[in-house]
């Protein structure tokens, strides 16, 4: 990962409401995390599946389109997923309505 991305992650980290950041490579292995290890593995495995499914859905609907971002809002949390070439970034925050 470039220094640019590192800087970006630091900025995300310092934002209010952000409770966790996880970076996962394409094999589902966490590269970087701010959560504890067990929870990280759990998130990584589940989001890997969701990412693939989302990519499929987008390609099914329009083959020229491209999946760029996913947001899952639940009652207690908000999980955001941003796919990149070799990895994807996940940010978990508590919703502030």
């Amino acid at each position: 990962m470039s220094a640019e991305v590192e800087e970006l992650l630091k900025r995300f980290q310092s934002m209010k409401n952000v409770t966790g950041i996880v970076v996962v490579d394409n094999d589902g292995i966490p590269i970087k995390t701010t959560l504890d290890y067990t929870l990280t593995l759990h998130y990584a495995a589940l989001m890997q599946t969701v990412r693939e499914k989302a990519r499929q859905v987008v390609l099914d609907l329009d083959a020229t389109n491209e999946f760029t971002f996913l947001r899952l809002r639940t009652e207690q949390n908000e999980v955001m997923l941003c796919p990149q070439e070799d990895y994807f970034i996940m940010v978990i925050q508590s919703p502030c309505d």
Partner: protein
Amino acid sequence: MASNTVQMTFDRLVQLPGVTGAILIDGNGVPVRTNLPANVARIYADRMRPLVILARSMVQDLENGDELSYVRLRTRRQETMVATENEHTIILIQDNRVLDESWRSSVASRRASAL
């Protein structure tokens, strides 16, 4: 037939800026109301369903008692929001540029009022 509350919510959502398509789906996965052609609505409903099911089971797996409110799937050109409440589902398709613009202007006005 969908309840009045859901119908009213649907009517309100269609007015949002940048909405290029909206679909109201009942509990059986059948599009009830839409402003898209019927076959396009059907395709969207069928394709989004497994993603929402997967997301819902994932959320329940991570935290017991938590529940999925909505999924926002952003692509290069448009953003699709899928909101599920009870047994009804609303799918909203919005244009990226309009969405970003309205978000930017709301942030700007919030900042202006904070000064």
